[in-house]
């Protein structure tokens, strides 16, 4: 008898011919997650198991944060001896009260009892031993699983995990990471779909300081927890901003700045091998996030731009930020490059056709190339 963690996966189930590939990636990711706990991970009969870990709670915490995992259950692995199994079930159900149901499942057809019989017999014994429990076969509060496979497994507790798709199966994308509340959440949403990220941050010294940079690295570190390391591109952006500030109409300043960011980001994304950009924009949140403004920013890049927060309210975004533990870092009050020259009255309905004329006075290509050239690349490791 030994303690194991039973791992169920979600959407990977829906995969057809390439399911083995997804499962391999998922198993590898779980292996990486439990490595500090020395856990042993294996795949058997469409289930992933973890055993020999040093700390069950830590193991549950780590595995339930692996994308692609639907839920986890602390389970007991036993020999296929019915008396031994029944005794362990009685023991496991001892502290519980309320209603329960036994779900017997026999995939080893050599086992002398069938699924129904297992359920009935064990249910009887549990009921006898614990007067605080009653049976409810329709809506039980506790679901006791008894599975007879190559070994016998029993479990009752099921902990919901993050879900999503295994990290790395969704390709690569580049996240524009500002340091605010939204962009880390946007990154998380795509990571959840199995996308590996790099982060791109725009710095404007001396208008922004070392603390702002440190804050962004802290946020990248939080996200890196889910991917095991993240590349962060630190773009020196002051020169672009000053040129824009000097040569473009004030009310279009933010929009032109956004267009420059997208151009630079696309070049860096290609360096990373990414196929898309991710931003934390939410429709109508600020002047640069109206449909007209987004049309103007999208127009300068060929890559798709993913905006997973486009339909979310600020409060919904904040809730996710709290859940993924980026909120407290995001609200630190350091100036970021976006707020440096914020115009007092930005245009909310810009016209795409006006953009070339506005940018005419700027040597766009040279400014973008210089920023890309001087970008510093950092690797952030998870905590």
């Amino acid at each position: 008898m030994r303690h194991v963690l039973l791992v169920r996966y979600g959407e990977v189930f829906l995969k057809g011919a390439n399911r083995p590939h997804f499962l391999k990636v998922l198993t590898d990711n779980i292996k990486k997650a439990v490595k500090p706990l020395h856990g042993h991970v294996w795949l058997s009969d469409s289930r992933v198991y973890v055993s020999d870990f040093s700390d069950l709670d830590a193991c549950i915490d780590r595995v339930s944060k692996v994308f692609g995992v639907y839920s986890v259950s602390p389970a007991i692995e036993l020999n296929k001896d019915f008396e031994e199994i029944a005794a362990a079930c009685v023991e496991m159900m001892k502290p519980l009260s309320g209603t329960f149901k036994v779900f017997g499942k026999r995939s080893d057809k050599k086992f002398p009892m069938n699924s129904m019989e297992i359920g009935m017999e064990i249910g009887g014994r549990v009921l006898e031993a614990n007067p605080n429990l009653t049976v409810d076969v329709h809506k039980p509060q506790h679901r006791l699983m008894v599975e007879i496979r190559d070994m016998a497994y029993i479990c009752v507790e099921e902990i919901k995990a993050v879900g999503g798709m295994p990290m790395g199966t969704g390709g690569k994308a580049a996240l524009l990471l500002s340091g605010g509340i939204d962009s880390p959440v946007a990154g998380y949403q795509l990571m959840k779909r199995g996308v590996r990220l790099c982060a791109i941050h725009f710095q404007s010294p001396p208008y922004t300081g070392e603390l702002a940079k440190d804050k962004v690295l802290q946020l990248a570190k939080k996200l890196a927890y889910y991917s095991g390391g993240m590349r962060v591109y630190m773009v020196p952006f002051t020169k672009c901003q000053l040129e824009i500030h000097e040569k473009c109409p004030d009310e279009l300043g933010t929009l032109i700045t956004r267009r420059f960011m997208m151009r630079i980001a696309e070049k860096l994304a290609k360096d990373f091998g990414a196929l898309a950009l991710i931003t934390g924009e939410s429709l109508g949140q600020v002047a640069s996030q109206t449909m007209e403004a987004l049309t103007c920013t999208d127009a300068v890049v060929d890559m798709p731009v993913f905006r997973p927060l486009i339909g979310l309210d600020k409060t919904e975004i904040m809730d996710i930020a709290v859940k993924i533990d980026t909120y407290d870092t995001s609200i630190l009050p350091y100036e970021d490059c976006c707020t440096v020259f914020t115009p007092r009255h930005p245009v909310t309905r810009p016209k795409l056709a006006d953009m070339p004329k506005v940018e005419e006075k700027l040597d766009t290509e040279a400014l973008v190339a210089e920023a890309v050239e001087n970008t510093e690349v950092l690797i952030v490791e998870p905590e």
Partner: protein
Amino acid sequence: MLAYLDNSATTQPCEAAIEAMTACLREGWHNPSSVYRPAVEAFRRVREARENLLKPIRGANCDLIFTSGGTEANNLAILGTVSRMRGRQTVAVSAVEHPSVSAAFEQLRDQGHDVRVIGVDMTGQPDWEALERALNDGASLVSMMQVNNETGVKLDAERLHKLVSGRALIHVDGVQGYLRVPFDMKWADLYSFSGHKLHGPKGIGGLVVKKGVKLSPRQIGGGQENGLRSGTENTPGIMGLNAAALELVKMGEDMPRELMEKKLRLIEGIRRAVPDVVIHGPAPEDAAPHIVNLGFPNVRGEVMLHALEAENIYVSTGSACSSKKLKVSSVLTAMGMAPAKAEWAVRFSLSPHTTEEEIDYAAGKIGNIYDTLKRFQRR
């Protein structure tokens, strides 16, 4: 080239302090409260340090309580004295104190005491008449800082002493003044200072208490420091503080004058490069010799700070304790400055170890930086 001009935030520990601390950690580490020979030796060295530290402020009739630094000393002085007084007290504090003082008075207010905040004029001098009124209303404690950490404004401690003359206890926060601006314990009942502002280590400071002043401890336990501050003495800190203080004393009576000359040289250099520069507070000659607060018109202090940082020149916008909060200085607004202008403030703070090369380097760079920055302003 590097210019460290943020000595009011903290100072670089001097070699003498580092040596004294290392020696203490290696050999003199015994508990001064124990009774065998090496422990008694440690006790003797702590006593010697106490005497050395009291001497420059003529503290012969005073005790020195070692604390973890200026904040604890200020807290102890204010909360410790008032808690020994009976009933609701009237207490007075200037409007431009360090948060470790003003927050202590806030706590007294929450406890129901009558806290009078004494305003300051444009040069940072307290409203003496308001103080007189508070005293007439029976104020029992007055707290004012010797040197303002943001502007360098100096307290006229002798005037304060004459005005109060036995009617109330006087606490002076000497964190920015001790050993750089002369002080005499005949002017105050309580005086706080900190080690790391004098090229000593962090984590050590002291509260000087005139004999007979009643105090209740904020930290209780084994009864060290006459029962006023329990906890095993921080002997390495005390040795470091003592060594650093001796170094400053050794520089002699001319040191403050030389420091003032350096400050004037810095201001002159900056003025030459940036004729628009504004001096916040009193005329530099009337302020403490090591602090000056300057405004660079239409350039936010924070931006100036980061631009200087890129040239290895380190300054701050206000006190280091509040500069991460991105608020306009409450000291400058208390002096009647408009918040929009207070945003321009940059504090330069020197130490006796600041070199003329550092000063000239900083002054030289500031001109170019200012010319670039003033071109780009938020419209």
